[in-house]
């Protein structure tokens, strides 16, 4: 049937990478998806210079899309600088997720990204602009 619930998505859903809570942590943030109320929290540890991500973990319950997206995104965070993460393009997060995301599930797919931005900036980040993010990346989308 659809391309959304591919095996690797379901594998990340069942056994998410980087799940848990780092304690102590240098950066932490929690946020929720307004459409379903799912909550996701993230904790990060930085290297000695306080510039690069040494470790990261996320926690919370959610749908397969939000869990897989956070799982895949956090896999790629270690060793990267905070400046790089601040400039992280939400379209890259969708591309890494590797399944077509339409407007109906965009917030699910970007919840982890939004929490990461909140952790880095120390305050709630706004949702990326839908038209901009989906403009050329959706490939027809998965859901209306």
């Amino acid at each position, binding site marked *: *049937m*659809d391309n*959304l*619930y591919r095996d690797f998505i*379901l594998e990340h859903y069942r056994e998410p990478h980087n799940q848990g809570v780092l304690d102590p942590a240098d950066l932490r943030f929690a946020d929720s998806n307004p*459409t*379903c*109320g*799912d909550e996701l929290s993230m904790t990060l540890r930085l290297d000695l210079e306080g510039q690069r991500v040494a470790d990261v973990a996320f926690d919370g*319950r*959610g*749908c*397969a*899309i939000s869990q897989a997206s956070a799982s895949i995104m956090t896999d790629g965070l270690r060793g990267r600088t905070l400046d790089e993460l601040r400039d992280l393009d939400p379209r890259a997060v969708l591309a890494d997720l590797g399944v077509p995301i339409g407007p*109906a*599930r965009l917030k*699910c797919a970007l919840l982890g990204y939004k929490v990461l931005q909140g952790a880095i900036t120390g305050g709630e980040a706004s949702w990326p602009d839908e038209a901009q993010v989906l403009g050329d990346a959706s490939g027809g989308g*998965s*859901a*209306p």
Partner: protein
Amino acid sequence: MAVLPAEARAIDGRGLRADFPVFERPTRSGRPLSYLDSASSSQKPRSVIEAVADAYGHHYANVHRGVYELSVDADARFEGAREAVAAFIGAPSHREVIFVRNATEALNLVAFSFGRSTLRAGDLVLSTQMEHHANLVPWQQLAAATGATLDHVHLTDDGRLDPADLARQLERRPRIVAVSHVSNALGTINPVGEITRLAHDVGATVVLDAAQSAPHMALDVEALGVDFAALSGHKMLGPSGIGVLWGRRELLDAMPPFLTGGSMIKRVTLDSAEWNEVPWKFEAGTPAIAETSGLAAAISYLDGLGMASIRAHERALFAAAWAGLGAIRGVRLLGPADAEQHAGVISFVVDGVHPHDTATILDEAGIAVRAGHHCAQPVMQRYDLPATTRASFYVYNDLDDVERLVEGVHEVRRVFGLS
């Protein structure tokens, strides 16, 4: 299966779909649309769509103010719609029918106008744990503004109002009891007549959220005995942007206006204003004119089917869906099992699958259901769920929709490797 009442004629959901242009629309799945989200908003029959177009095309002018032929025509249609609503809900007078945008606005009107002018610090407003945010947040705001207390009747594990808790709470002599007729998140039909009798015994004013009942069963505000009732046109085959507040004349007469401005005044000077009579006192500004024609057409369509027939039809679909979904391993159904206490709304969760994922996989099969908290987050908190998937039925659904839903949920479990 429920037995049809004597006055009820069987409804042919598939046949009725020919009246609704939306069902001509193909879905990505290649299968016809199975629309199971009417509790959120209903589809519109051609007669309603044409009534709105006809109002704009051939009968349009502003209401209340014109002396010319076209305006008189528009006015007659507008006030005619008011009479149609009054007859539909059993109101003693069309003067008690106030046009608003939707049930949310109707409930806000009651909370602001009636609530703020009558409540004092320490008074109790009693609501329930199953309310839509529209029948919860306005009362929270009212309590904050007046110093009143807001409390909530608890729910049983199967989604009914706990009668013992209701009795206990009523002993505290609430001034206002705000309750839904049918829960949008659970499907529970509340015994509103009984609740109203008990509430009146302790001197409370009863505010009924009828948004989920008026489209699906006979609503008689006189027989129920309530004091206010709120309806949304868009859930009952009508246009969006038009809703109704019904209230008892003596209450409405005593209430201050909610919104002020044009139309709602009798006389204005630079320093003061006198209010128009009800219902116009509560209808400031140019209303949704064409939409009232659409609402009247919707009522005409519903009357043609008969509300008893609609209720019997949905009871049968509920019973089939409850049995079919309940037989699937790992599916948890919310609300009462008794079809007499449960409208055509089924909230459910599939163990191991998030409700959003369930809805997306059903969508892939052309089945439109809702997933989320259904604007009733306290209900989700009561049952410790982040969200549910919700299927809701209306006149254009039939047993085919139920079968597709049940098969779709089996597919959800297959996709997630659960069967």
